[in-house]
């Protein structure tokens, strides 16, 4: 491995100036290893718009409010109406072993994913309403402001 420690690109140290309370060893000295986040990162190019961002193999929607006893099969049944489900990510709570509460569904085509966002957002899934949105965005969500907040 080449000892390539890129130095360009100052990391944003703090995006909020008005911190009222700080806790932890990280504030005591400068031993933090954070410099690893310096350097050049690879991303995927969007179409220049402000909408959702295409992933390598398709379009990913993010589902929250997922019932703790949901299975991949349940999710598949719920989301297959909008198109061919290519992949499902359903993570479990590491402590309880139940579903953590979110899932990701991958479709090959934007139209299918768009339909899931349009039709299934707010739909009932195992007695709970789920929120269905895009997982990735082609633009920052907001400008990071360096102002104090009350």
């Amino acid at each position: 491995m080449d000892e390539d420690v890129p130095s360009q690109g100052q990391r944003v140290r703090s995006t909020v100036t008005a911190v009222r309370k700080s806790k932890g060893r990280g504030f005591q000295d400068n031993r933090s290893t954070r410099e690893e986040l310096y350097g050049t990162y690879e991303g995927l190019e969007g179409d220049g718009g402000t909408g959702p961002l295409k992933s390598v193999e398709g379009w990913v929607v993010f589902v929250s409010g997922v019932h703790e006893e949901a299975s991949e099969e349940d999710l598949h049944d719920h989301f297959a109406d909008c198109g061919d489900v290519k992949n499902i990510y359903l993570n479990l709570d590491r402590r309880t072993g139940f579903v953590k509460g979110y899932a990701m569904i991958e479709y090959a085509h934007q139209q299918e994913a768009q339909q899931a966002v349009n039709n299934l957002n707010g739909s009932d899934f195992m007695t709970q309403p789920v929120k269905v949105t895009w997982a990735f965005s082609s633009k920052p969500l907001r400008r990071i402001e360096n102002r104090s907040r009350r």
Partner: protein
Amino acid sequence: MPGFTEDFYVRYYVGHTGKFGHEFLEFEFKPDGQLRYANNSNYKHDVMIRKETYVSQAVLEELERIVVDSEIMKEDDRNWPEPDKVGCQELEVRRNGEEISFATTKLGNLLQVQQSKDPEGLRIFYYLVQDLKCLVLSLIAAHFKIQPI
């Protein structure tokens, strides 16, 4: 359900320096949705993975829910094992004008947590970082099709 906050920031690092150099995994979420992920393992293949993307508001909200539900902000790393040769973990969270920047050693198993001086607090950290890693690895895998090391 906690309210969404505009200044929400999370960073996690785990790593060590050993036979294969500096091996680590690190990620951060910025308030504008930027997710950065870096993973370096020199074992067998010399690859440094650095990926970035923007996640949607819903992903940030879910992340915030997970962090808030864990109640990690109420903890303190004062009585946790210090980072050492085995490795180092760092967790930084900013939210609502409060920030934590915790550092401890790598925790291999729950027994280590239970035998520490602050088992309740360290357990919260232990499970939270696993849940966070799990979310990030899925996001990165879904977006870039990368199988993490």
